[in-house]
């Protein structure tokens, strides 16, 4: 059976949340972390939150963002898993293509992201990804089964549309909304990869 693996990025593949790291450049890491938590809980829509966070963090020069993002630690087990199944793994993230390209390059697999452009030093969000749509597009590639891994409220459409959903609490506990849409809950990267290999 051909299986695709769809991974959330922030706090799933990465061992820390990305946007608060960028926010530290502006001295607003805690504020952005709070906004990130509120968004992951589903208290405000992901699209509203992403646009707001982009407006604030867009003040950080893109080159600096790439330096920060390039140094973000990744879960070593998940990185190895993706390396061994590169053709069938997909990063599915609401984060901006403009910002996360260094991580996508490091991981080496295909990705679905929100899209943004940079104009006169400002970040303009052109499209915010619906993760459920991404899963539908992966399915159109011919996969018979899709396994999705995520942790936040914006992962709910992805987990719901996948054939098997895994709520991952590697960095912090997965949000209740993500747990509710999942078949499995896992708190450790090694165990997650063990499960992905077994399924």
């Amino acid at each position, binding site marked *: 059976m051909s299986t695709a693996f769809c991974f959330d990025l922030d706090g799933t593949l990465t061992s820390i949340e990305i946007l608060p790291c960028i926010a530290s450049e502006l001295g607003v890491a805690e504020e952005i972390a709070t906004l990130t938590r509120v968004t992951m809980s589903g208290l405000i829509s992901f699209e509203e939150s992403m646009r707001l966070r982009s407006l604030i963090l867009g003040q950080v020069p893109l080159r600096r963002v790439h330096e920060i993002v390039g140094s973000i630690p990744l879960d070593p087990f998940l990185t190895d898993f993706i390396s061994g199944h590169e053709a069938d793994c997909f990063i599915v993230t609401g984060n901006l293509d403009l910002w996360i390209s260094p991580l996508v390059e490091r991981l080496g697999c295909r990705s679905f992201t929100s899209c943004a452009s940079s104009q006169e030093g400002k970040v303009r969000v052109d499209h915010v990804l619906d993760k459920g749509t991404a899963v539908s597009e992966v399915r159109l590639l011919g996969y018979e089964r899709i396994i999705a891994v995520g942790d936040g409220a914006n992962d709910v459409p992805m987990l719901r549309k996948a054939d*098997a959903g895994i709520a991952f*609490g590697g960095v912090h*506990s997965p949000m*209740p909304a993500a*747990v*509710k849409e*999942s*078949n*499995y*809950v*896992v*708190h*450790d990267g*090694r*165990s997650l990869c*063990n*499960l992905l290999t*077994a*399924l």
Partner: protein
Amino acid sequence: MLEVGGKTILTRLVDALRPHVGRIHVVVGYREELIIEYCALHHRDVILVRNPEFRTTNTAQSMNLGAAGVRGKVLFLDGDLIIDENSLASFIATAAAHPLLVGIAPTRSEQAVCVQLSKDDPAQVCGFTRNDALPFEWANVVAGPADLLADASGYVFEKLLEFLPIAAQEIDLREVDTPADLDSATIYAASLRGGNLR
């Protein structure tokens, strides 16, 4: 989440299983958030398998959910057991040589499902019964293929009827179902050797 001798039954089971199996799946339903939180704190390597239909499904269906999609051999066991680790290790080692291995224990339960052992080979179960007071009962432990319970709708032992006769091995354990069980399990837990009392 019940504690016996100052340690939860879940932790006792996970600690006993961990050295002998590649992965531990814990099926959660009622008050799942408590067990998920507990495992996030104490057993981060455990895979939690959700059974949202826990109100309308039985143990066999939960166990099947726990093994869904997994290839190879699986050790199915109830979550209310306290098992001697050495006995468990021996059972798992024996299971490697049999397509199906049933755990049996001296009959102690109030409403025991007893096992009828073959007269020719006492290491073979040839029947299960609720009616006879036989020396051994079904211990709620079985090792077999991952899809063993794929279409089970009743009790686990009822599904096992399809495969009789089945190889059996005694396993040293206690089940904690009632307040009386808890008292005897506490004494039993205290009697276990050092390896079980980490």
